[in-house]
Protein backbone atom coordinates (compact mmCIF):
# COMPACT_ATOMS: atom_id res chain seq x y z
CA UNK A 1 0.00 0.00 0.00
CA UNK A 2 1.19 3.50 -0.82
CA UNK A 3 1.89 5.46 2.31
CA UNK A 4 1.66 8.90 0.74
CA UNK A 5 -0.52 10.45 -1.96
CA UNK A 6 -0.73 13.91 -3.50
CA UNK A 7 -3.96 14.25 -5.43
CA UNK A 8 -6.58 16.64 -6.78
CA UNK A 9 -9.45 14.25 -5.92
CA UNK A 10 -11.13 14.19 -2.48
CA UNK A 11 -10.10 11.30 -0.25
CA UNK A 12 -12.15 8.76 1.65
CA UNK A 13 -11.25 9.22 5.31
CA UNK A 14 -13.16 6.16 6.52
CA UNK A 15 -11.59 3.86 3.90
CA UNK A 16 -8.10 4.96 4.92
CA UNK A 17 -8.78 4.40 8.61
CA UNK A 18 -10.34 0.99 7.96
CA UNK A 19 -7.44 -0.11 5.80
CA UNK A 20 -4.82 0.85 8.39
CA UNK A 21 -6.29 -1.54 10.94
CA UNK A 22 -7.98 -4.19 8.80
CA UNK A 23 -6.50 -7.62 9.29
CA UNK A 24 -4.05 -6.54 11.97
CA UNK A 25 -5.36 -7.42 15.45
CA UNK A 26 -2.12 -6.10 16.97
CA UNK A 27 -3.24 -2.52 16.27
CA UNK A 28 -4.52 -0.98 19.50
CA UNK A 29 -4.55 2.70 18.58
CA UNK A 30 -5.37 4.70 15.48
CA UNK A 31 -4.84 8.45 15.57
CA UNK A 32 -5.98 10.63 12.67
CA UNK A 33 -5.52 14.27 11.87
CA UNK A 34 -7.69 15.92 9.25
CA UNK A 35 -6.84 19.46 8.18
CA UNK A 36 -9.76 21.34 6.69
CA UNK A 37 -10.11 24.53 4.70
CA UNK A 38 -11.55 27.35 6.85
CA UNK A 39 -13.71 30.12 5.44
CA UNK A 40 -11.87 32.87 7.32
CA UNK A 41 -8.14 33.58 7.33
CA UNK A 42 -6.42 36.61 8.84
CA UNK A 43 -9.88 38.04 9.45
CA UNK A 44 -11.05 37.89 5.82
CA UNK A 45 -13.68 35.66 4.24
CA UNK A 46 -12.07 33.19 1.83
CA UNK A 47 -14.18 31.78 -0.99
CA UNK A 48 -11.75 29.33 -2.63
CA UNK A 49 -8.16 28.24 -2.25
CA UNK A 50 -5.68 26.88 -4.78
CA UNK A 51 -2.91 24.60 -3.61
CA UNK A 52 0.25 24.59 -5.73
CA UNK A 53 3.04 22.10 -5.15
CA UNK A 54 6.40 20.95 -6.53
CA UNK A 55 5.66 17.61 -8.20
CA UNK A 56 8.39 15.11 -7.48
CA UNK A 57 9.84 16.93 -4.49
CA UNK A 58 6.49 16.86 -2.68
CA UNK A 59 6.36 13.08 -2.78
CA UNK A 60 10.01 12.79 -1.73
CA UNK A 61 9.50 15.18 1.16
CA UNK A 62 6.42 13.32 2.40
CA UNK A 63 8.18 9.95 2.06
CA UNK A 64 11.12 11.28 4.07
CA UNK A 65 8.85 12.61 6.84
CA UNK A 66 6.94 9.32 7.02
CA UNK A 67 10.18 7.32 7.06
CA UNK A 68 11.51 9.44 9.92
CA UNK A 69 8.32 8.93 11.95
CA UNK A 70 8.51 5.20 11.29
CA UNK A 71 12.05 5.16 12.60
CA UNK A 72 11.37 7.26 15.70
CA UNK A 73 8.30 5.34 16.88
CA UNK A 74 7.07 1.75 16.82
CA UNK A 75 4.24 2.02 14.29
CA UNK A 76 2.04 -0.41 12.36
CA UNK A 77 0.86 1.78 9.53
CA UNK A 78 1.05 5.37 8.29
CA UNK A 79 -1.00 7.08 5.61
CA UNK A 80 -0.65 10.67 4.42
CA UNK A 81 -2.89 12.17 1.74
CA UNK A 82 -2.64 15.79 0.65
CA UNK A 83 -4.86 17.50 -1.87
CA UNK A 84 -3.70 20.02 -4.47
CA UNK A 85 -5.65 22.20 -6.88
CA UNK A 86 -8.80 24.11 -6.04
CA UNK A 87 -10.54 23.71 -2.69
CA UNK A 88 -13.58 25.22 -1.01
CA UNK A 89 -14.26 25.93 2.68
CA UNK A 90 -14.92 22.73 4.67
CA UNK A 91 -12.95 20.61 2.17
CA UNK A 92 -10.43 18.29 3.80
CA UNK A 93 -6.92 19.34 2.71
CA UNK A 94 -4.75 16.74 4.40
CA UNK A 95 -5.17 13.45 6.23
CA UNK A 96 -2.50 11.91 8.47
CA UNK A 97 -3.46 8.57 9.99
CA UNK A 98 -1.17 6.44 12.17
CA UNK A 99 -1.72 2.96 13.58
CA UNK A 100 0.23 1.55 16.50
CA UNK A 101 -0.06 -0.94 19.33
CA UNK A 102 -0.30 1.87 21.89
CA UNK A 103 -1.75 5.36 21.82
CA UNK A 104 1.29 7.35 22.93
CA UNK A 105 3.31 6.44 19.86
CA UNK A 106 0.38 6.99 17.49
CA UNK A 107 -0.30 10.48 18.92
CA UNK A 108 3.37 11.49 18.82
CA UNK A 109 3.91 10.22 15.27
CA UNK A 110 0.72 11.77 13.89
CA UNK A 111 1.51 15.21 15.27
CA UNK A 112 5.17 14.95 14.24
CA UNK A 113 4.18 14.20 10.66
CA UNK A 114 1.77 17.13 10.32
CA UNK A 115 4.22 19.51 12.04
CA UNK A 116 7.01 18.49 9.67
CA UNK A 117 4.73 18.52 6.63
CA UNK A 118 3.74 22.11 7.40
CA UNK A 119 7.36 23.22 7.31
CA UNK A 120 9.06 20.89 4.85
CA UNK A 121 6.67 19.74 2.16
CA UNK A 122 6.56 22.11 -0.85
CA UNK A 123 2.91 23.17 -0.92
CA UNK A 124 1.72 26.75 -1.25
CA UNK A 125 -1.77 28.08 -0.65
CA UNK A 126 -3.30 30.94 -2.59
CA UNK A 127 -6.65 32.14 -1.39
CA UNK A 128 -9.36 34.17 -3.03
CA UNK A 129 -11.05 36.88 -0.95
CA UNK A 130 -13.39 39.74 -1.88
CA UNK A 131 -10.24 41.86 -2.38
CA UNK A 132 -8.72 39.40 -4.88
CA UNK A 133 -6.16 36.59 -4.72
CA UNK A 134 -3.32 36.42 -2.21
CA UNK A 135 -0.65 33.96 -1.18
CA UNK A 136 -0.92 32.63 2.35
CA UNK A 137 2.05 33.51 4.54
CA UNK A 138 3.90 30.87 6.52
CA UNK A 139 3.09 30.92 10.24
CA UNK A 140 5.76 31.38 12.84
CA UNK A 141 3.79 29.02 15.08
CA UNK A 142 4.30 26.22 12.54
CA UNK A 143 8.07 26.68 12.70
CA UNK A 144 7.92 26.53 16.49
CA UNK A 145 5.78 23.40 16.32
CA UNK A 146 8.40 21.69 14.17
CA UNK A 147 11.27 22.73 16.40
CA UNK A 148 9.76 21.02 19.44
CA UNK A 149 10.66 17.67 17.89
CA UNK A 150 14.39 18.30 17.93
CA UNK A 151 14.53 19.22 21.62
Amino acid at each position, binding site marked *: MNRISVQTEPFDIAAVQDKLRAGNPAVGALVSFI*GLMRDINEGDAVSTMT*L*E*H*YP*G*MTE*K*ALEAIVAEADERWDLMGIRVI*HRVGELKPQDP*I*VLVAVASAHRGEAFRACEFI*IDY*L*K*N*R*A*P*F*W*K*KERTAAGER*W*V*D*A*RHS*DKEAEERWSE
Partner: protein
Amino acid sequence: MIRILYFARLREQLQTDSERLELPADITDIAALSRLLRARGGVWEEAFSGPTLMSAVNQEVANPDTAIADGDEVAFFPPVTGG
Protein backbone atom coordinates in the same frame (compact mmCIF):
# COMPACT_ATOMS: atom_id res chain seq x y z
CA MET B 1 23.56 23.20 -17.67
CA ILE B 2 21.27 23.23 -14.64
CA ARG B 3 17.51 23.52 -14.48
CA ILE B 4 16.02 26.11 -12.12
CA LEU B 5 12.38 26.06 -10.99
CA TYR B 6 10.41 28.87 -9.34
CA PHE B 7 7.19 28.36 -7.40
CA ALA B 8 4.17 30.21 -6.02
CA ARG B 9 4.60 33.90 -5.19
CA LEU B 10 8.17 33.82 -6.53
CA ARG B 11 7.04 32.33 -9.84
CA GLU B 12 4.52 35.15 -10.25
CA GLN B 13 6.99 37.81 -9.21
CA LEU B 14 9.60 36.61 -11.75
CA GLN B 15 6.95 35.81 -14.34
CA THR B 16 8.64 32.52 -15.12
CA ASP B 17 8.34 29.01 -13.71
CA SER B 18 11.67 27.63 -14.93
CA GLU B 19 14.82 28.16 -16.93
CA ARG B 20 17.95 26.36 -18.05
CA LEU B 21 21.25 27.93 -17.14
CA GLU B 22 24.82 27.17 -18.17
CA LEU B 23 26.51 26.98 -14.77
CA PRO B 24 29.49 29.38 -14.52
CA ALA B 25 32.57 27.69 -13.05
CA ASP B 26 32.60 29.86 -9.93
CA ILE B 27 28.98 29.07 -9.00
CA THR B 28 29.28 26.02 -6.77
CA ASP B 29 26.59 26.46 -4.13
CA ILE B 30 23.09 27.88 -3.54
CA ALA B 31 24.43 31.11 -2.02
CA ALA B 32 26.52 31.85 -5.14
CA LEU B 33 23.64 31.01 -7.47
CA SER B 34 21.33 33.32 -5.50
CA ARG B 35 23.86 36.17 -5.87
CA LEU B 36 24.09 35.52 -9.61
CA LEU B 37 20.30 35.68 -10.00
CA ARG B 38 20.03 38.75 -7.77
CA ALA B 39 22.58 40.52 -10.00
CA ARG B 40 20.05 40.42 -12.85
CA GLY B 41 18.44 43.46 -11.17
CA GLY B 42 14.77 44.50 -11.17
CA VAL B 43 12.37 41.87 -9.83
CA TRP B 44 15.29 39.45 -9.54
CA GLU B 45 17.12 41.75 -7.19
CA GLU B 46 13.94 42.23 -5.17
CA ALA B 47 13.11 38.54 -4.99
CA PHE B 48 16.60 37.33 -4.08
CA SER B 49 17.35 40.04 -1.52
CA GLY B 50 14.78 38.88 1.02
CA PRO B 51 15.90 36.54 3.78
CA THR B 52 13.01 34.13 3.48
CA LEU B 53 13.39 32.20 0.21
CA MET B 54 13.77 28.45 0.54
CA SER B 55 15.68 26.30 -1.94
CA ALA B 56 16.03 22.69 -3.01
CA VAL B 57 18.67 20.79 -4.95
CA ASN B 58 17.50 17.70 -6.77
CA GLN B 59 14.22 17.87 -4.89
CA GLU B 60 15.72 17.91 -1.42
CA VAL B 61 15.61 20.92 0.90
CA ALA B 62 18.85 22.88 0.56
CA ASN B 63 20.56 25.69 2.45
CA PRO B 64 23.00 28.40 1.27
CA ASP B 65 25.95 25.99 1.63
CA THR B 66 24.41 23.20 -0.41
CA ALA B 67 26.62 22.35 -3.41
CA ILE B 68 25.28 22.51 -6.94
CA ALA B 69 26.77 20.94 -10.03
CA ASP B 70 26.08 20.54 -13.72
CA GLY B 71 22.91 18.53 -14.34
CA ASP B 72 21.23 19.46 -11.05
CA GLU B 73 17.62 20.48 -10.66
CA VAL B 74 17.57 23.55 -8.41
CA ALA B 75 14.40 25.19 -7.07
CA PHE B 76 13.65 28.44 -5.25
CA PHE B 77 10.38 29.09 -3.47
CA PRO B 78 8.73 30.99 -0.60
CA PRO B 79 8.26 29.32 2.80
CA VAL B 80 5.84 26.45 2.37
CA THR B 81 2.23 26.67 3.55
CA GLY B 82 0.69 23.22 3.11
CA GLY B 83 -1.21 21.08 5.55
